[in-house]
C-alpha cells in the first residue's frame, strides 16, 4: 500500500516534470492535461497547504479536513451498516421464496440505474423533519451499498450443492437451521467481496450525497467549497480530495478487518459443505 502511494506521487510529479505546461493537444482535442501549477500543484504545495490555516487566523487545513473526514466516516458507517443489513435481508428473502427473487431482483438491479442527482434532492427534503440532515446522506449511501450485498449474498446463499441441501433435509432441518448451518457459512466467501464493494459504494454515496444536497460538515461539502477557490488557491481543493482518498482507504481497511473474526469459521464451512 505504501509502495502504491509512493508510485502515485512519483507519477504525479514525474508528469509535472516532463508534461507540457500547456497540455498536449492533438487535432484540437486535449489528450494530456496541463502540467502547470494552476492545474496540477506540486505535492509539496498541497502538503504545505495542509499545514497552513484555512483562512486568516483560522484553524489549519489538515484539522478541518480531518474533522470533515470523520463526519463523513460516520455517515458512511451508518449507510454501510443499514445497506448491508437491508442487502442481507433481501438476499435471504429472495433465497427463501423464488417468487420474490423473480419479482424483486429486476427492481433491485433497476434501483441502481436511477441517477443519484435525481434521487438526492428528493431524499434531502426529508432532512429536518423526518431525520437529521446527515441521515439523509446516509440513506443515499445505504441506497448504493445494499446492492452488491443483496446480489452477492443471494449468489452465496444459493451456492451450496443440492447434495448439501438434501443432507440437511434428511436431518429434518428447517429453512432457518439450513440457512444458519449451511447456507450462511457457504455464502461467506461471496459476502466479503460484496461488503468491500458496498464499503466503496457507501463512501461514494456519502461524498456525492453531500455534494448534491449541500449537507454541511463533511468532506464532500468541503470539496465543493474549496473548488470554488481553485482560481486563486488551487492547492486547497487537492487537500480535500486527499482527505476523501484517505477516507476511502480507511473504510476499505475497516471492512477488511470485519473479515478477520468471520474468516476463522471458514474451515468449518468446508467440512459442512462437503
Amino acid at each position: 500500500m505504501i509502495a502504491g502511494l509512493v508510485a502515485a506521487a512519483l507519477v504525479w510529479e514525474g508528469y509535472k516534470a516532463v508534461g507540457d505546461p500547456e497540455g498536449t493537444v492533438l487535432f484540437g482535442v486535449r489528450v494530456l492535461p496541463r502540467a502547470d501549477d494552476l492545474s496540477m500543484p506540486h505535492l509539496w504545495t498541497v502538503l504545505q497547504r495542509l499545514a497552513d490555516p484555512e483562512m486568516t487566523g483560522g484553524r489549519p487545513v489538515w484539522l478541518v479536513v480531518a474533522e470533515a473526514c470523520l463526519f463523513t466516516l460516520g455517515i458512511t458507517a451508518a449507510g454501510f451498516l443499514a445497506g448491508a443489513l437491508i442487502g442481507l435481508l433481501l438476499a435471504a428473502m429472495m433465497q427463501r421464496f423464488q417468487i420474490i427473487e423473480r419479482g424483486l431482483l429486476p427492481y433491485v438491479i433497476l434501483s441502481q440505474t436511477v441517477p443519484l442527482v435525481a434521487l438526492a434532492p428528493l431524499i434531502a427534503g426529508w432532512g429536518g423533519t423526518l431525520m437529521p440532515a446527515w441521515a439523509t446522506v446516509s440513506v443515499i449511501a445505504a441506497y448504493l451499498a445494499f446492492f452488491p450485498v443483496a446480489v452477492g449474498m443471494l449468489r452465496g446463499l444459493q451456492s451450496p450443492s443440492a447434495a448439501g441441501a438434501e443432507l440437511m433435509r434428511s436431518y429434518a432441518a428447517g429453512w432457518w437451521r439450513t440457512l444458519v448451518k449451511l447456507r450462511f457459512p457457504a455464502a461467506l466467501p461471496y459476502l466479503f467481496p460484496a461488503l468491500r464493494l458496498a464499503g466503496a459504494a457507501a463512501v461514494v454515496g456519502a461524498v456525492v450525497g453531500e455534494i448534491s444536497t449541500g449537507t454541511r460538515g463533511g468532506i464532500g461539502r468541503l470539496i465543493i467549497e474549496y473548488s470554488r477557490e481553485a482560481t486563486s488557491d488551487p492547492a486547497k481543493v487537492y487537500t480535500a480530495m486527499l482527505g476523501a482518498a484517505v477516507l476511502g482507504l480507511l473504510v476499505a481497511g475497516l471492512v477488511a478487518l470485519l473479515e478477520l473474526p468471520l474468516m476463522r469459521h471458514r474451515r468449518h464451512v468446508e467440512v459442512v459443505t462437503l
Partner: protein
Amino acid sequence: MKFSRILLASVLALGACGTADTPTTPAPGASGALTPIKLQLQWFFQAQFAGYIAAVDQGFYQQQGLDVELLEGGVDIVPQTVLATGKADYAVAWVPKALASREQGAGITDVGQIFARSGTYQVAWKDSGIGSAADLKGKKVGNWGFGNEFELFAGMTKAGLDPSKDVTLVQQQFDMQALLKKEIDAAQAMSYNEYAQLLEAKNPATGQLYTADDFAIIDWKTEGSSMLQDAVWANTEKLSDPNYQAQTVKFLTATIQGWAFCRDNAEKCRDLVVAKGSKLGKSHQLWQMNETNKLIWPAPGAGIGTIDDAAWKQTVDISMTTKNQTGDTVLTKTPEGLAFTNDYISQAIEQAKAAGVDVTGSAFQPATVTLTEGGA
C-alpha cells in the same frame, strides 16, 4: 441496537416519501408563539444572502412573530422546486429559472424582487481588445449553461452576432481558471463572486495580485440584455389564504429591514456571514456584500423589492425569444397566472417606512473593497 434504529429510520423514511402534507398557515403571532418559517436559499451561506442572515441575527423576523430557518442550497437543490413541493415556505431564486419551473407547473409567485439589477459579467483580458458584446465575434466564449447563459446569448444576439456561428462556445467550470490559462477569451462571472476570485489570484509574471486594470468587463446591464435575478418567491396557492398573506407581508417587512441593515453595516454583515461558517475569506465576503448592495441600492420605485414592469418585461421577452446553443428558450409562452405581484412588498415597504427604515437607500454609496490573496 444501532442496526435496528437505522433500519427503522430508513423504513419510516421510505414509507413517508409519498405523503404530501400541506399544513394550513396559522395566523402569525396569533398565539404569542413564533411561527416557524423555512426560507430556501440558492447556495451555501454567503454575503449574497446577508440580508436574510442579518434579519435572523438581528431579531427582525422575531419582532414580526416569525421563527425563520434558512436552508442552504446545494449542487442539486432547486429552490423553486423545494418551495413548490411545500418543503419550504419561501424561496430565493433567479427570475428566469423560476419562470421556467412555473411553466413546468410549479405554483410560485415573485413577491419581492430584492435584486433590482443583474450581477452577471462577461470578463476578458484587457489586452484582448474585447470591450463589448460585438467584440466577441470569432472568440472563444465561456458560459455556464444550465440556464445561467441567457443574458450572454441575448447580448450577443442584440449585438448582431449569431451565437451558434460567430463565436466558439465553451462550457465553463464554476471557477475562472480557464480565463487565467487563456483557454477562453471571455468568461462568465458574477460581479460578487467569480470576478472577485480573479482579483484574488496572483499573476505569476509579476508575483502580485491581478488588478481590475488587467481585465475588461462586459456588463449586461449596459448592453441591455440583463435579466432579473434574486427574488423572494411564495407559494401561489397558499397566497389565497389570508393568514399566509399576512405572514408574507411580515416576512418581507423583516427582510427589508435585514437588507437595509446590511447596506448601513456592511462589515457587521460580513462578520455575520463569516460566523455562519462560510469558507470564503473575509475580504471576499466584504467584496460580495458591497457588490450585492450595489445590485439592490439605490432601490427603484417605491423601494427595495418592488418589481419594475419594464425590467420584468425585458426578462420575460428575453426568456421567450433568446435561444441558447441547443436552440432552447427559457419559456415557450408568456407566463400565465400570478407570476408576480407587488401587493405584499408594497405593504411591507409601508410598514418598514413607518418603522423608520430607509427603503430606497437613495444616498447609498458603494465602498471600495481591497481584496487579499485567496480572499482571506
